């Protein structure tokens, strides 16, 4: 939902970034306000996933220029865990598996590290269990999953639902979903999308990174950005996604090439 007067949550200006000495982001600009849902689309290798990792602070990616401000603070000064505690959440394309650490314990550690950062008391196991049980319904997850090792042996759909459950627990100001729709069957896609829709509100913002328009049938974006060559080439509304689906990405590149002349 677009509201011109709402606060700017994320402001990215002229961002450039390298990985292994290769420049991937080449002057990216983006502004995200509270209440908005943004979709970033683009072909493979356009830099979408790199952008999500740079936002979340992956140490393998080096920011070489530009600025990222998050709620008015310089994000680049913060490590990955500090960004997470400050309200940035990245849902991973490939969530990792951790044998021996139960889903419930993991959620509790993550949740309490945020509470601590906010200067709040850690929640005891009893209260925490109650809270988690409420959130399970958002992604229609069976409570039995809480006792299992984190993501271990989970199907692709279960892993993605688990990511959304983590997001529901951590209540981020900015939720970034990196290809959360990839590899999901239609039922899982509906559950995940429905979860995201329940979590989106006027106080937070969502950035969806996706290759396919399909996700946007279930989560309606306020803005669609097309990324290519490490930059956002064009921005439009929901209809831009449909146009991309129908015409592919080539026309965007051509228009850009014409505009550049």
């Amino acid at each position, binding site marked *: 939902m677009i509201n011109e007067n709402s606060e700017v949550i994320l402001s990215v200006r002229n961002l450039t970034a390298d990985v292994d000495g290769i420049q991937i982001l080449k002057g990216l600009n983006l502004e995200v306000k509270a209440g908005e849902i943004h979709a970033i689309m683009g072909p493979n290798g356009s830099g979408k996933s790199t952008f999500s*990792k740079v936002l*979340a*602070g*992956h*140490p*393998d990616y080096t920011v070489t220029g530009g600025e990222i401000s998050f709620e008015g603070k310089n994000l680049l000064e913060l*490590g*990955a*865990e500090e*960004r*997470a*505690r400050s309200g940035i*959440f*990245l849902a*991973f394309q490939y*969530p*990792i598996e*951790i*044998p*021996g*650490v139960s889903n419930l314990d*993991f959620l509790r*550690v*993550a949740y309490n*590290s*945020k509470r601590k*950062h906010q200067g709040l008391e850690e929640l005891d196991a009893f209260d925490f269990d109650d809270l988690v049980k409420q959130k399970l319904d958002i992604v229609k997850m069976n409570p039995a999953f809480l006792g299992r090792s984190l993501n271990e042996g989970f199907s692709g759909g279960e892993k993605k639902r688990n990511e959304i459950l*983590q997001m529901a627990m*951590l209540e981020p100001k900015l939720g970034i979903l990196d290809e959360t729709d990839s590899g999901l069957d239609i039922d899982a896609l509906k559950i995940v999308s429905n979860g995201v829709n329940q979590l989106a509100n006027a106080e937070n913002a969502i950035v969806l990174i996706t290759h396919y328009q399909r996700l946007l049938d279930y989560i309606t974006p306020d803005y669609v950005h097309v990324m290519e060559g490490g930059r956002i080439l064009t921005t439009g509304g929901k209809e831009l996604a449909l146009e991309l689906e129908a015409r592919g990405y080539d026309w965007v590149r051509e228009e850009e090439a014409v505009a550049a002349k």
Partner: protein
Amino acid sequence: MTIPSTVSDVAPINGKLKVDRAAYLQQLLSLRPALDEAVGLLNVIRDRATARVQELAIPSTRDEEWRFTDLSDLLQVRFQASSEQAPTLSFDKIQPFILPEAINSRLVFVDGHYDPALSGVDDLPDGVMVTSLAAGAELLKDLPSYLAQQQGAEETFTALNTASFTDGALVWVEKNQTIVPPIQILYVSTATQPTIDHPRALVVAESGSKLTLIEEYVTLYDGTYFTNPVTEIWLDTNAEVHHTRIQHDSDAAFHIGKTAVSQARDSRYTCNAVSFGARLSRHNLEVYHTGEQTETTLNGLTIISGEQVADTHSTIAYTHPHGSSNQIHKCIVDDRAHAIFNGKVFVPKAAQLTDAKQLSSNLLLSPKARIDTKPQLEITADNVKCTHGATVSQLDSDEVFYLQSRGIDEDSARKLLTYAFAYEVIREIPVASLREKLAAIVREQQA
């Protein structure tokens, strides 16, 4: 106690190594306790092994089997004979090591001596004998067919044990008996002086029987001592033994242990070997198949740090068709520690249709940590499925990042991932309290 290398009967680094290493071994042999004349069988066995030891020397790194494991440090220590009687320990000293599941099925040895007061075998289920070897030697006429009869007995430290042991643990499961409670054999060291002990265990699972065995080496102090154990395990046809071996010695200790297993047709053997090391530790794990369609599962975990050296040498020797084995060995090596893994699998022509898998997976936590890993498959049969792999890696930065992105600091993230790496082996242990105890030790070590 470390003595200077100028003492004549200890090998100087550049002296006549071979001669001195032989003399050193004979010195260790001379420390063996005298045997009670009444135990005739043990006398015969010891005498045979003594003759063998007298031909041998402490191996050097020029010996292929000891290429990466340098015993020079051992030669710097002058060991003494263990006291003739075990110190009296109160139960509360060893209580932390007693598994609740094995409260009525445990044998406790203190500095190599059987301690009946600390053991608890009064309420055993029917069909299993759990006692000391000395007691068993009088009761079992079949004992000579098994005791010290495993292959590989001529190896230096195995022979030294056989020439030196006076007693040991005996676990004997009768035909078709399933023993539900785990049998725990606990070896406690109280050494504060450099002493040498030769723990010995004999486990026989008769045809169709089933047993869970927990063998554990622990210490009460940070002493310099040398534990040289041998455990022999016999599985008759269709028997099943689930064996867990925990080695947790002092950082100043030496531990050179042998597990020799013989598997008859259709038998199933699992070994979970968890080593927290010593100053220098070695586990020789040898599984000999004597019939068709045997199954062997070896799960290994070594966690070492500081200056520790920990070596696992395993052998699976097939001799018949349709056997299968699944081996995974993991090492977590921190600081300047050094882990060695050598995994032999022999598949001769007679062992067609063998299915053998081996994986050596290693985590290096520090730039100075070292791992030598060597899968060694010798296959002459032509219709078999044998795979092996070895990986040596650091923690994956994407995995660390995943945890950081959930608000967990980098240090905690690394510890959690290291724990998870170890847990994949720990979870195979069938006794819940032990599994939890080990998980807690690993978490604490990483904290």
